[in-house]
């Protein structure tokens, strides 16, 4: 951090929030709200005179409330810049002035009660999102007694307790009597890997954190008895298995089973854990002086705001989604935006550093080149046909279409931002959007070719490039058979499937049409497939009004890994096709 702070080409903006992001790759304009520090950070030397005199005492957030701080403080000892900040909501010296002691004490006159927040706009070419994560609050898991028993603490609280810069200067104590605990129990997977409470995913870091903590205790206090209650120990990184073995060799006991209940002895404040050891099948009571809940990681509470500002996608677990999990693991779907660390998924320090290095390199490649190559599948506006209604701009997940509502000028595509999902093309009622390589003519041409002969024997399937089409591929390489009546038309996104494509297929005699795309959480174009769903819902209404069974238009979300589902759905489509009569098809042709 200090190196970053001193680097001549890095401007560190602390106590700041991103208020707005406009523009696109190479041309982002970012509004940053620089909050008032009320201390001149260039002048302050962090001498500490103001702290000694400040009468306001508050819980120290960095120590998770295990110690206190003053209203004027440094958030943590290694904070950069090495200057104090004043929390004006806590300070007594604000309006009306009731204290002002720090002001009098500071010889360098660094303190300024009248300092104001300030908004600055910066221009940047690329953005790296490294917003971190939060930790799971175990309050809802009442059986572990986190809110009832003082000697039940979280792994993060333990981290501060055992840290030499922490509230006890690294001395291991238990909260009730400040004595060294003789028996310590760790409980793993708190808030992780649970479908009912907490989160279904593995938080990645907790097992190794516990192993590290157990070794720390054993190194300093070898007499302390340690038991770790776990589901599985996931020690898959380089050197991790060795560390696990070392922990066991040092006498740490690993018991496969999570306690179902914790009680407290009212006299000793010791904790009694009831747990089944699934290896022996026995339910055993264990007594511990202190219990440490190994809490999982959760997405940062700020993710919703950042997602909106940068038009990002999130996976179902709430972490940000990469442009591609294997081939572009640090790129965001929005060009010029990259991820580092736990913003993308729970990860340890090593993985975070690796990803941060990769993100910095990816950004640097773009910045050094000074040019950016766009794939030739972007959309283009036919100005003669454009009625300046603004629908294309409204539906674009990337805000890649500019539209002046007042001047009523034709829309304009920012090609550097356009990802080529084609939603604008599907939603434009005036056919004014041309999707390069996926034009209306090209797709309608495929529909016509499919239905040229014996249309009653065909099922027209629109499949998105990234998921459903890849699902078909996966079904193929898995040797899963599906009916030969299936005819697939690939689009980059299901959002490209225009109402006219579907109606044209029915008009040419298609018995069944299927529109398929990525699951909502997997959409490769942020949220373009939400528009697919809306469009299909409208089409169902339209077909019904015309006396056509809406069941003949089907919608399905199939991921690239769901080859089995793809084959199953195709078989169901064939069954549906067989249920459509020639009379129905003829009626449809006439009605459309």
């Amino acid at each position: 951090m200090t190196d970053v702070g001193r680097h001549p080409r890095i401007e560190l903006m602390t106590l700041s929030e991103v208020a707005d992001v406009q523009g696109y790759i190479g041309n982002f304009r970012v509004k940053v709200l620089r909050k008032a520090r009320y201390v001149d950070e260039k002048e302050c030397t962090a001498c500490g005179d103001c702290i000694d005199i400040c009468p306001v005492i508050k819980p120290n957030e960095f120590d998770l409330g295990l110690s206190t701080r003053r209203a004027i403080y440094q958030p943590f000892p290694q904070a950069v810049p090495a200057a104090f900040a004043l929390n004006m909501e806590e300070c007594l010296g604000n309006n009306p002035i009731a204290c002002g002691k720090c002001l009098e004490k500071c010889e360098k006159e660094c303190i300024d009660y009248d300092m104001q927040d300030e908004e600055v706009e910066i221009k940047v070419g690329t953005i790296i999102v490294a917003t971190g994560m939060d930790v799971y609050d175990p309050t809802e898991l009442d059986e572990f007694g986190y809110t009832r028993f003082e000697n039940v603490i979280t792994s993060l609280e333990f981290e501060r307790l055992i840290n030499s810069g922490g509230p006890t200067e690294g001395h291991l104590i238990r909260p009730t009597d400040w004595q060294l605990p003789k028996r310590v129990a760790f409980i793993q997977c708190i808030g992780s890997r649970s479908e009912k409470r907490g989160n279904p995913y593995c938080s990645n870091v907790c097992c190794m954190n516990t192993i590290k903590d157990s070794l720390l205790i054993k190194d300093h206090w070898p007499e302390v008895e340690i038991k770790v209650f776990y589901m599985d120990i996931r020690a898959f990184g380089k050197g991790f298995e060795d560390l696990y073995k070392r922990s066991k060799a040092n006498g740490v006991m690993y018991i496969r089973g999570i306690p179902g209940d914790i009680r407290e002895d009212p006299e000793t404040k010791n904790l009694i854990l009831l747990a089944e050891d699934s290896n022996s099948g026995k339910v055993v009571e264990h007594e511990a002086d202190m219990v440490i809940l190994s809490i999982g990681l959760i997405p940062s509470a700020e993710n919703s705001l950042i997602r909106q500002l940068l038009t990002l996608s999130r996976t179902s677990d709430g972490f940000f989604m990469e442009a591609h999990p294997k081939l572009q693991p640090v790129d965001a779907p929005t060009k010029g935006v990259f991820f580092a660390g736990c913003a993308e998924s729970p990860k340890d320090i090593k993985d975070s550093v690796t990803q941060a290095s990769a993100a910095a390199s990816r950004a640097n490649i773009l910045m050094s080149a000074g040019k950016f190559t766009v794939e030739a599948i972007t959309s283009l506006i036919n100005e003669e046909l454009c009625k300046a209604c603004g629908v294309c701009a409204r539906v674009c997940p990337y805000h890649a279409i500019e539209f002046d509502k007042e001047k009523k000028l034709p829309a304009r595509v920012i090609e550097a931002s356009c990802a080529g999902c084609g939603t604008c093309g599907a939603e434009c009622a005036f056919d004014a959007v041309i999707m390069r390589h996926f034009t209306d003519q090209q797709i309608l041409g495929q529909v016509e070719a499919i239905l040229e002969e014996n249309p009653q024997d065909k099922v027209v399937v629109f499949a998105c490039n990234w998921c459903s089409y890849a699902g078909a591929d996966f079904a193929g390489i898995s040797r899963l058979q599906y009916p030969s009546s299936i005819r697939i038309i690939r689009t980059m996104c299901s959002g490209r499937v225009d109402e006219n494509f579907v109606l044209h297929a029915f008009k040419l005699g298609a018995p069944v049409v299927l529109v398929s795309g990525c699951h909502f959480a997997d959409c490769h174009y942020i949220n373009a497939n939400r528009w697919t769903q809306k469009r299909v819902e409208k089409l169902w209404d339209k077909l019904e009004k015309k006396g056509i069974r809406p069941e003949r238009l089907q919608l399905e979300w199939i991921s690239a890994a769901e080859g089995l589902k793809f084959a199953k759905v195709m078989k169901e489509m064939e069954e549906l096709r067989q249920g459509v009569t020639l009379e129905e098809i003829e009626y449809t042709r006439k009605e459309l």
Partner: protein
Amino acid sequence: MAEEADFKCLRCGHQFKAPYSPKDEPQERACPQCGSNSVRRIKEKAKGK
């Protein structure tokens, strides 16, 4: 209490209730019986018929 609406699966015909509010973002829906995503909301007007 969350608002609910009636839905019909266009694959197996199963009808079911699920949380729904017109103000909400569109959600991925699946039929609880067959798992199909061809799930259509039965609108009030249609229910009265």
